């Protein structure tokens, strides 16, 4: 992409055994971050906030590009095929972990990408209209055993769909009908208009409704209650031990990138989110900030791939 010229020069240098020198001088030119979603979306907003900050730390422009499509698979493929020099970074979400199991034939795998940082995570929640007859998780499940309930999500194969679907059918053992919408906003609209019973969604998509009292939170799939809805109990507190599902934004580079460059980028991201102004903006969107070193990041991502894979398989979902 943008940095081909440098890439080729760097590639030639690497052949001559100058790989370490490459890491020492990095970054020498602008870095591009390829977001797998449209400008203005959740992942894009988070990426731009962080990119702006790391550009200050690294002393090079960090250019955000959008390559939306197929739940970020297109951007992931592009970056996995880019040169492993640290100048092309992928910004994606939980979807990249889900897609490994959900999609039948992908032209890239997690082996082709190295995780740099997963700076933010936002829990999944279940929310209902204030007029809905069941306002707690227990009441909701009881209601679902007697009646047909529907829940809206941002779409088929989204983290919200898989987490909620897995929860209802595998953990709670109730039948709830999934009604996918094209994005979080229409899903929230459907439950506001009482077209559906509930919505399963990530906190950033619904935070404003909680704060305004438009919708009520029934359960949050995080270890601790969220600051956005402090009164909303966790699934654990409602009797479902350890049911945690979060939507995160993560940065990846092509596999084979120099470990020093990965560490450098990881530090830059962690420094960015430590900045109080950045942290405030990210948390304002409903995210929890997580500071992980490169090993922790890799472990986090492989845990995510495994746990989402298990849920996708339990639901028997497959896209091809």
């Amino acid at each position, binding site marked *: 992409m943008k940095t081909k010229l440098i890439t080729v020069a760097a590639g030639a240098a690497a052949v001559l055994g100058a790989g370490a020198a490459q890491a020492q001088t990095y970054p020498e030119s602008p870095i591009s971050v390829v977001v797998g979603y*449209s*400008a*203005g*979306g959740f992942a894009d*907003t988070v990426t*731009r*906030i962080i990119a*702006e900050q790391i550009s200050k730390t690294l002393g090079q422009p960090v250019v*955000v*590009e*959008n*390559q*939306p*499509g*197929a*739940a970020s*698979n*297109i951007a992931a*493929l592009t970056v996995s095929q880019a040169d492993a020099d640290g100048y092309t970074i992928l910004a994606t979400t939980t979807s990249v972990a889900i897609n490994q199991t*959900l999609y039948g034939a992908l032209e890239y795998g997690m082996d082709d990408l190295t995780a740099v940082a997963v700076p933010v995570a936002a829990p999944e929640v279940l929310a209902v209209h204030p007029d809905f007859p069941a306002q707690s998780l227990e009441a909701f499940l009881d209601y679902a055993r007697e009646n*047909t309930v*529907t829940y809206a999500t941002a*779409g*088929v*194969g989204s983290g919200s769909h898989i987490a909620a679907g897995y929860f209802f059918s595998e953990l709670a053992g109730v039948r709830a*009908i*999934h*009604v*996918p*919408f*094209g994005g979080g*906003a*229409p899903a*929230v*609209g*459907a439950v*506001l*208009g009482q*077209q*559906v019973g509930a919505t399963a969604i990530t906190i950033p998509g619904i*935070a*404003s*409704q909680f*704060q*305004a009292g*438009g919708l009520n939170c029934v359960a949050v799939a995080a270890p601790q209650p969220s600051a956005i809805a402090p009164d909303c109990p966790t699934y654990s507190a409602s009797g479902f031990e350890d049911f945690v599902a979060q939507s995160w934004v993560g940065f990846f580079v092509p596999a084979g990138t120099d470990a020093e460059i990965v560490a450098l980028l990881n530090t830059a991201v962690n420094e960015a989110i430590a900045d109080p102004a950045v942290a405030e*903006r990210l948390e*304002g*969107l409903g995210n929890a900030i997580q500071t992980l070193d490169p090993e922790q990041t890799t472990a986090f991502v492989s845990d995510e791939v495994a746990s989402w894979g298990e849920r996708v398989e339990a639901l028997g*979902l497959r*896209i*091809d």
Partner: protein
Amino acid sequence: MLDIFSNAALGLSVAVSPENLLFCFIGVLLGTLVGTLPGIGALAGVSLLLPVTFYVEPTTALVMLAGIYYGVTYGGSTAAILLNLPGSSAAAVTCLDGYPMARQGRAGVALFMTTIASFVGGTFAIILLMICTPLLARVGLNFGPAEYASLVVLGLIAASTISSGSPVRGIAMVVLGLLIGTAGSDFETGRLRFTFGHLEIADGISFVAIAMGLFGVAELLNNIGSGARTTTVSRADYSWSKLYPTRQDWRDSWGPMGRGSVLGAAFGILPGTGASIASFIAYAFEKRWSRTPGRFGNGAIEGIVAPESANNAAAQAGFIPTLSLGIPGDAVMALMLGALIIHGITPGPQVVTSHPELFWGLVMSFWIGNIFLVFLHLPLIGVWVRILLVPYKYLYPSMLFFICIGVYSVSNSSFDILLVLLFGVLGFAMLKLDLPAAPLLLGVVLSPILENNLRRAMLISGGDPLTFVERPISAGFLLAAVVVLVFSLNLFKRGKGSQQAVPADPD
């Protein structure tokens, strides 16, 4: 009523602050420029200015982002009229009569009237926004999947005759469009349909690629080698006096503008769906309303002012659900809400009361922005029209470039450029086989709205099809669809006769 005036005064005082005026101007200017480039949408301009929004007051940020948004809807008609290059579904409708007007040497008039129509539509929606935002927002919420599905059925039946010529081929193209619109990931199962291994179309085929291929490339091919070139008009037709509408043009336009504004505003309050279909419906409505439907498609001024006013009314009315419920209609609206959240303001029903200076300031800035746009556009008309004086041998390679780069910009995808090629071939074939392109585009736009909402409604009702007639709003649309259908069958029987201008024989 007094409330409105005091609120409007408050809003005006916010909107005319030097900073807000400046950012409003930047927003509409950028929006116009970006919108004039065919295919480059609001998101491109917004992405560019996004970092700025972090450093200015939330009201200022919103004023600027909103300016880009409606500035793009103003600018979108320019390339559509002059070169038959539509960058959005609304612009595709404007092509139908705007481009024929340009070929008759009336490009200046078309550009002038679309600017006025945009202003009228925008103004109407702003008044609506001021008077009854909370009320209308609730109406939008009553629209569930069943209502959307029934509304699209009505829209399809009403608009299937937007092209002139054989109704059979018009309907066949609507069906083909619906079919093309099903390509991509199925909303319920995720099954990839008609993608043939290309994940690039998993989210559906780029609308801009289809529109540019069918309208832009096909028309360009038709001009090449035909000896016709672009227009049969001379330099004299580009004199300044010829740029302004005649008294007859004005007289023909007021009615369509008014009806277009009402329709556009009505559709605009439906989050996400409204703006894309408002202009199609407005066009179809005018064609049915007209005593001379045969003029449509051949440069009827009603055919551009109605959809343009509808389009802009819908764009402004789209702020009703966005601001009062916190439900954004599209990506740009979502971004505006994101800007608010970053500044610690929660969008939702309370914004109007808890941050009156923001809400009213923004609404009043719409007025100012719309006035800016009129004054930006009118002087530029003379410049734009001169594009047509460029010799065709230089014009068409430039058009091809703008088509390709515009389509690429939507998702930075070279694959989409190859799709333009595919739809260019299809468009050329359709032209030579007397198959109309506009109904196909209508089908593409409506296909996912129809299919997904129909199936969603069935999921929600537990598989009971009676849901469509038991819900009153849905039943109303279906009833209206039946009425229109009966009308159409009558039209169908008279065949080509009804297409001719017979003033004494209203439809």
